[in-house]
């Protein structure tokens, strides 16, 4: 689609997110909290919202609640005429919901919509949560091998070390530096699940989860919600002082691991980011700040290479060289990322959007990326099965 010819320009007005962590609130209560904050910040009222794009993955297992979208809609007082639709794309759920909201605003179907997601993973406990998360792996041909999500990224890490001839011990030290960096950023985020610094020894001394990934290579199970309000750009300018514009988007699909084969190259991400670069007219050198899908430390390294920030096989020591820190050449996960901010899977993409919107408005306080003009959101669903990218500008 070419903006201005077929598609209308779309902007983000307001954003909201709960604190991520362990919550006593229900999925719908959390979503209403984030949604109302986003609506109030947009200088509109719930009755003005024309559609809800709602993300949730595992509500059936978390609270015995399916078909959550119309209940979230009612909780927020949205009008009956506004359809509420649930999205599920594993960990990429909210980003996919927001992308479709932006497409429909861009296409002129709606002028003002709410999109985001909620997840309450901690009600399940770790063994059952690990089972339900594994439902996002291929159920007939891959789940029977006892694969888990840490296991998928562990296999990618072994392949990366082998392919590029990096001794595993050395790769693990650089991976640990990604966790140290994201916890450092998270220590400045009052909404992060973990707000404390960690050191290299802590990461390398952690319990082994799936060789070679240790506990601190992995993001946590978290509860939380996040939401954004989108509008046609002219309407956005009438309503708020600092609308943040959707410059380009991409989404692509990967399929089961037995078809992906080389797990060091996330083909779906390469396809998705090239769509987003093409639509926005920007390239890797133009991006000031990134919120990317660091569900595991190796995942951040793979993403940096897919974006073209680094050549393939060269991003493994980016955090060690401090190139991805707040003061680095491209700031990666200033929120703390999934690692420290937490990962309520159905909400994660909206929280990434929230961070980039606040960064581009210059409202991120101690973790502000000075002068940030263009930001990138990257969300991965399942075992590389879905990738969604959104490029924003101020």
């Amino acid at each position, binding site marked *: 689609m070419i903006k201005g010819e077929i598609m209308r320009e779309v902007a983000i007005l307001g954003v909201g997110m709960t604190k991520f962590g362990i919550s006593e609130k229900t999925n719908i209560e959390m979503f209403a909290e984030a949604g109302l904050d986003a609506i109030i910040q947009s200088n509109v009222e719930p009755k003005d919202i024309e559609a809800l794009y709602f993300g949730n993955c595992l509500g059936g297992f978390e609270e015995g609640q399916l078909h959550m979208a119309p209940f979230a809609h009612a909780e927020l007082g949205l009008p009956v005429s506004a359809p509420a639709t649930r999205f599920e794309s594993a960990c990429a759920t909210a980003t996919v919901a927001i992308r479709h909201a932006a497409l429909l605003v861009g296409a002129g179907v709606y002028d003002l919509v709410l999109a985001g997601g909620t997840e309450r993973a901690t009600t399940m406990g*770790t*063994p*059952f949560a*690990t*089972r339900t998360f*594994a*439902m996002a792996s291929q*159920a*007939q*041909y*891959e*789940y*029977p*091998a*006892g*694969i*888990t999500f*840490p*296991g998928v990224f*562990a*296999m*990618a890490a*072994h*392949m990366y*070390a*082998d392919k590029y001839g990096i001794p*595993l011990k050395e790769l693990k030290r650089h991976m640990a530096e990604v966790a140290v960096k994201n916890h450092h950023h998270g220590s400045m985020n009052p909404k992060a699940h973990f707000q404390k610094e960690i050191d290299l020894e802590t990461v390398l001394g952690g*319990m*082994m*989860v*799936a*060789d*070679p*990934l240790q506990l601190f290579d992995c993001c946590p199970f978290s509860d939380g919600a996040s939401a954004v309000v989108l509008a046609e750009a002219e309407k956005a300018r009438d309503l708020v002082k600092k609308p943040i514009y959707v410059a380009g988007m991409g989404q692509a699909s990967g399929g089961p*691991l*037995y*078809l992906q*084969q080389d*797990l060091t190259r996330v083909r779906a991400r390469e396809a998705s980011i090239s769509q987003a670069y093409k639509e926005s007219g920007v390239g890797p050198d133009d991006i000031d700040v990134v919120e990317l899908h660091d569900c595991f430390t190796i995942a951040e390294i793979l993403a940096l290479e897919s974006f073209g920030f680094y050549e393939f096989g060269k991003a493994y020591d980016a955090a060690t060289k401090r190139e991805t820190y707040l003061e680095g050449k491209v700031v990666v996960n200033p929120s703390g990322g999934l690692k420290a901010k937490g990962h309520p899977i159905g909400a994660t993409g909206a929280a990434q959007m929230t961070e980039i919107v606040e960064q581009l408005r210059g409202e991120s306080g101690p973790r502000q990326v000075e002068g940030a003009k263009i930001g990138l959101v990257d969300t991965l669903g399942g075992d590389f099965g879905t990738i969604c990218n959104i490029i924003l500008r101020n």
Partner: protein
Amino acid sequence: MDPKLTFDQYQRGLEKGKFLGLKCNNCNAVTFPPMAVCRSCGGTALKVTEIGGEGILRTFTVIRVAHEGMDPPYVTAMVETDEGAWVMGNLVGINPDDADMRLMGQRVRLGTQPIKDDIYSAGHSRGITFTLQPS
């Protein structure tokens, strides 16, 4: 269009020690595990074929925190079969604590093992195993 080889038929093959896949009449690629179309060219002119059951281990992990109902530690791996298709399974016959980077590129033979069902899985019977071949 009816599938040429269903999951159920694939499972019955595993029960007899046969690894059933699909060979493409158009490009000769072997699709294993089965799909509705050729994994390589997307063609639908497919015929059921039995694969040889050998390949090369391309990556692995030792699962130490497993989902409920599993008995960790165990080794999960991906193998490139001699026919070119990749498949996931469990490396058996070694102590998981001995699994390290020396496994990469090793030749393996495919086998099968019973799978523990749970209430969410719709009736698996057997999964794929890998056994290291003497070099």
